[in-house]
């Protein structure tokens, strides 16, 4: 203990550095995305869903490689073939993954196909084998498949549909359209929503009034009948790609009001802030103020809420295709596939034609959980 000239006391023992401080303050020094990631990680369900979605989307370009058949490849001898299991042990002996070949027979009493498995001759599956040609990621032509059935046997994991096409392969191909339709749609809705919402919120006055009325009107109308009406207007001679894009645009075009309303209300509260006044006084143009000063404030939050409207679009595409007004036959999507399962008879006799509903349910659930987690993680006012 020493006494300073002015009479204060100072402890003379050497100063001990606070070892815990760095660790304690680590969170304060982290970049924002890291904080978001830390909070997102706590949301277990959201994390799992996010992983599932990531895997699904990464898989899309390789659908042709993973699936044993191509989307429109027909097996005329195996119409409505029932699902085949993959076995490992034949009569107690391990012989690696194999299937039993199946042969079709018409049951003339019920007029349906019946399949009998040939339990004597297990057909060993081949890996990295050559099958029919497809385009990897849309441009690399290849005929390598991850797995295929040997000569004389088939591998229909989820059965075959009414034309003898493999349901499993078609689900993988269908994912390419069904999963991207929501992304394209949300982009459209995002662009319209942000532009109109920020105009309404920033300028106010008459423009705001007009945009607000449009939002109210669109929100008060049932979506599906309008979707139906719009997609009925798509000319029937258009190719699958144009139909795909126009359908996704149709899905997006009715979705923006919710987003625009959120943007507008944020703008209304933010535009009175000092930093906006300052930017304006320094001569920034409205478009610059909107882009550089206002939007970044809540863009991440908007993305999270956009994630939550993707499922609605996926379901919308499914419904439209199911009713025959969405994507059309040579194109494969989950809705187009479900078109086959439209009547009770097929669900009763061939329940596997309804399998495409499982990926729909999983993806929609995953988007919901993922969006919830993301929103919680990004919400600065979280408890």
């Amino acid at each position: 203990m020493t006494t300073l000239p002015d009479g204060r006391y100072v402890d003379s023992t050497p100063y001990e550095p606070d070892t815990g401080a760095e660790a304690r303050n680590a969170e304060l020094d982290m970049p924002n995305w890291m904080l978001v990631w830390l909070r997102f990680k706590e949301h277990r369900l959201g994390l799992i869903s996010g992983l599932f979605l990531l895997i699904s989307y990464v898989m899309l370009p390789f659908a042709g490689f993973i699936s044993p058949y191509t989307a429109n490849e027909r097996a005329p001898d195996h119409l409505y073939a029932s699902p085949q299991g993959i076995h490992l042990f034949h009569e107690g002996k391990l012989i690696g993954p194999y299937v039993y070949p199946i042969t079709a027979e018409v049951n003339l009493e019920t007029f349906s196909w019946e399949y009998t498995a040939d339990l004597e001759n297990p057909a060993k599956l081949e890996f990295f084998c050559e099958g029919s040609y497809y385009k990897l990621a849309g441009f690399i032509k290849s005929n390598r498949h991850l797995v295929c059935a040997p000569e004389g046997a088939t591998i229909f994991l989820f059965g075959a549909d009414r034309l003898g096409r493999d349901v499993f392969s078609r689900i993988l191909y269908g994912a390419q359209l069904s999963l991207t339709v929501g992304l394209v749609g949300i982009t459209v809705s995002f662009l319209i929503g942000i532009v109109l919402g920020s105009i309404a919120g920033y300028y106010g006055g008459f423009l705001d009034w007009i945009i607000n009325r449009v939002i109210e009107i669109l929100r008060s109308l049932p979506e599906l009948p309008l979707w139906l009406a719009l997609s009925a207007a798509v000319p029937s001679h258009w190719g699958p790609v144009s139909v795909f894009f126009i359908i996704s645009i149709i899905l997006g075009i009715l979705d923006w009001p919710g987003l625009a309303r959120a943007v507008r209300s944020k703008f209304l509260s933010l535009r009175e802030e000092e930093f906006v006044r300052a930017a304006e006084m320094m001569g920034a143009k409205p478009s610059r103020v909107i882009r550089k000063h206002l939007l970044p404030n809540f863009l991440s939050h908007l993305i999270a809420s956009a994630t939550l409207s993707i499922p609605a679009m996926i379901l919308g595409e499914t419904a439209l295709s199911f009713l025959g007004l969405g994507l059309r036959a040579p194109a494969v999507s989950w809705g187009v596939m479900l078109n086959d399962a439209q009547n009770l008879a097929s669900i009763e006799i061939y329940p596997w034609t309804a399998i495409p509903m499982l990926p729909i349910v999983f993806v929609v659930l995953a988007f919901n959980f993922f969006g919830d987690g993301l929103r919680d993680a990004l919400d600065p006012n979280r408890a």
Partner: protein
Amino acid sequence: MVILRFAVFRFITMLATLVVVSVMIFAIINLPPGDYLSNQINELRATGQSSGVAKAEFLRTEYALDRPLWNQYLIWMGFAPGPHGFSGLIQGEFGWSFEFDRPVSDIVGGALWLTVLVNVAAILFVYMVALPLGVLAAARSKTWIDYTSAFVGYLGLATPNFLLALILFYYGNRYLDLPIGGLMDPKFEGEPMSYEKMKSVLVHMIIPTFVIGTSGAAAMMQRLRANLLDELGKPYVETARAKGMSETRMLVKYPLRVAFNPFVADIGTLLPAMVSGSVLVSVVLGLQTIGPFLLTALKSQDLFLSAFVLMFVAALTLVGTLISDLLLALLDPRIRFGGRST
């Protein structure tokens, strides 16, 4: 008096909205190139049936389809005189269905009431399910009740309506002996309303109501739960508990009332979703609502029929929203006096 003024104001707004919507619908319907009659005329010409061409041409002038689009719209709405004077929607003339070759009002007549009935039933179902479940899930949050209801709710949100319909139909018929297809026994069709018919309709409505309502109920339940949980964290709840009020009484008396407001207000977003769902489910299940007519009309470009059905669907949601707004104004004085926050 204030409430009356509010009602009149909202009514006028609704009418204005309907007019805007009618323009939009007419434009959308006319988007595809060509129309039913010109398609038919082309087809008849190609096959060389000139008598049919004359009839189609006659219908074309009869329904003013040879005039410019804006004029067609005005005639269709009844704002401008057509070939037979004013005869549009506002005069109660719904036009002619070329596909069915009958007046539109003949075709959709009975279906309109059934559409309203199905939707009202679905709304009631949503409230009856969502209210108790939402309250229960909030009051017993983080218990198995909460988790189960959340799980079922999510599943309801994620399953496409039409598939749920098919599956429930199949199992309902198999195990509960519920009837398949339609909204009533075929023998009652066209019969006057009787007790038996009523019963048949009710039994037929179980599954459609359930299917249409599930996703709405799930969303509503989650919202009610969230609202209620917010309220439950507030100090006045603590006070009530500290004073020894029983949990149920406290819940019903204070937080539920506050959380209830958005519940009623939500009907505005609920209703469009319901109507969407009912159109889809009707097509799948073959209910005699206007859903199936809409689909056939849209596919064959039957101008007046599809326009009328779309108008009706829009009007249905708008009227429903109007009613809910008025109810809300009765419930919550802030809305009446404050006007809309813009």
